[in-house]
C-alpha cells in the first residue's frame, strides 16, 4: 500500500468553528494524513472527535481554517462530482422515489432520461433493491434507506466515496449485514473509500487501514493500524480479536 499512489492528502489541517460570534470551537488540530488509491480507510473516533468534520472537508462542505486537503494533487475547495457522500441520517429526498433519488445526481449533470434510468437501475440492482424503484423513502426500512444512499452515491461514479457513520442508526443485525454488503459492493466497484465510525468492530471488519482520532476536541490523529486480515473477515477470528484488543487497550481512555 505504501507504494500506491496518494489519492487524498491532508496537510496540517486545522478547523475552528466560530459560534455566536465570539465562542470558538477548535475541532481539528494539525491533521496530516494520506489516503491511497483504492484503499478502504476507516477513521475511528468517539463522538465529538471531529471525524465528521474531517470527512466534510474532503467532501468540500467545509473548508479547513488552516492547512489544505488535496485530491489528486488539486486542492479541494468545493463539492465535486469526483466525491460522493453517504450520510448518517440518510438525507434522501423524501419527495423522490428510490429511482428518483438514485438518479438525482445524474439529473443535476443534465444527463438524458433514458441514460440515467439505465445507470440508476444498475446501481439499484447492485444494492439489492430491485422492485422498490417506485417506493418513496418513508416506505423503506433504515437499512433499505441506506442502500438507496449507497446506490445514489455510486451512481455518480465518484473517485472517492465518503461514508459518515452510515450504519449508526441501524440495529445490530442490519448493521452487520450492511457491513458485509458495503464490502461486496466496494469489491465490485473498487475506488477509494473513507469510512467514518465510532465502532471498533466495524472499523476492523471493513478497513484496510484504521486511523484513530483522539476524543475530546480538538481531534487529532493518535494512532494508525493496518488490517492485514483476508476478506471476508470473521468477527470471532482470533487475529480479529487480537487487533480489537490492541486498539481497545491503546484507546480505552478515549472511547
Amino acid at each position: 500500500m505504501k507504494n500506491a499512489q496518494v489519492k487524498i492528502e491532508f496537510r496540517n489541517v486545522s478547523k475552528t468553528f466560530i459560534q455566536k460570534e465570539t465562542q470558538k470551537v477548535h475541532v481539528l488540530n494539525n491533521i496530516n494524513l494520506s489516503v491511497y488509491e483504492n484503499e478502504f480507510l476507516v477513521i475511528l473516533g468517539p463522538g465529538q472527535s471531529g471525524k465528521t468534520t474531517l470527512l466534510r472537508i474532503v467532501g468540500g462542505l467545509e473548508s479547513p481554517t488552516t492547512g489544505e486537503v488535496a485530491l489528486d494533487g488539486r486542492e479541494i475547495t468545493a463539492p465535486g462530482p469526483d466525491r460522493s457522500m453517504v450520510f448518517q441520517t440518510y438525507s434522501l429526498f423524501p419527495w423522490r422515489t428510490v429511482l428518483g433519488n438514485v438518479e438525482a445526481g445524474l439529473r443535476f449533470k443534465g444527463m438524458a432520461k433514458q441514460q440515467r434510468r439505465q445507470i440508476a437501475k444498475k446501481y439499484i440492482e447492485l444494492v439489492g433493491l430491485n422492485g422498490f424503484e417506485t417506493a418513496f423513502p418513508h416506505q423503506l426500512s433504515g437499512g433499505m434507506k441506506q442502500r438507496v444512499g449507497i446506490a445514489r452515491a455510486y451512481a455518480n461514479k465518484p473517485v472517492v466515496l465518503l461514508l459518515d457513520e452510515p450504519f449508526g442508526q441501524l440495529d445490530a443485525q442490519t448493521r452487520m449485514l450492511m457491513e458485509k454488503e458495503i464490502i461486496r459492493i466496494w469489491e465490485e466497484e473498487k475506488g477509494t473509500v473513507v469510512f467514518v465510525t465510532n465502532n471498533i468492530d466495524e472499523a476492523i471488519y471493513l478497513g484496510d487501514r484504521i486511523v484513530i482520532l483522539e476524543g475530546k476536541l480538538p481531534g487529532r490523529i493518535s494512532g494508525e493500524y493496518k488490517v492485514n486480515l483476508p476478506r471476508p473477515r470473521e468477527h470471532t477470528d482470533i487475529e480479529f480479536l487480537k487487533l480489537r484488543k490492541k486498539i481497545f487497550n491503546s484507546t480505552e481512555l478515549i472511547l
Partner: protein
Amino acid sequence: MSQLLSLNTEPLASKTLFEHLWASIHRVLIGWAIGVSIAVPLGIFMGLNPYVRAIVKPVFDLLKPMPPISWISLSILWFGLGEESKVFIIAIGSFVPCILNSYNGIRLIDPALYDAARMMGANRRQEIIEVGFFASAPAIFAGLQISLSIAWSCVLAAELVGSRSGMGFIIILGMNQSSPALIIAGMVVIAITACLISVLMDRLEKMVCPWKRELPQ
C-alpha cells in the same frame, strides 16, 4: 329548512341563494389569489435571502398581529363600498398565514438535504429548485389552506358592512328582518362551503405532495 330550500327559488334582494353564495366565493377566490400570489414569493425570498428578510420582516411583524377585519373601515375609505374593498380585506387576511408558512417552510429545511444535493453536484439554482421547492412545498401548501379558510371568514365580515350580495349580506338581512331561520340557513350554507373547501384542499394536497407523511411536523 323549508326557508333554506325556498331561497333557491325565491330571490332575495334580486339574487337567489346560489347567486349570493357565488358572489362570496368569487370574492374569496380573487382576494385569496391576489394575497397568495404576493405572499408566497415574498415568503420564499425572505427564507432564501437575508437582505429581503431584513427589509420585509420588520414590516411584516408589525402587520402580523393585526386582525384582517380591523382593515375594514380603512379599506372602505380607500376603495369604497364596491368589490375592491372586500377583495382587499380578503387579500390581507390570506397574505399573513401564507407568507409566514412560506418563510418558515424554506427556513426550516434540514440543511443536510442541501448538503446531499451539493454532494451530488447540484449548483445553487438546482439546489433551490430541488431542495428548496420540494422540501418547503408541504408547508407552503399548509399556508395556502389556512389562508383560504381565513379568506372565507374575511369575506363574511366584509359583507356584513355595506354589501348588497353574498352570504354575509344574507345574515345581515336575516337580522334586519328578524328572521332567525334566514340567519341559520345562511350559517349552515357557510359551514358546508367551508367544509367542502377544506376537503378539496386536502385532496389536492395528497395529489401534489404524496410524500408528505414522511416530514416530521
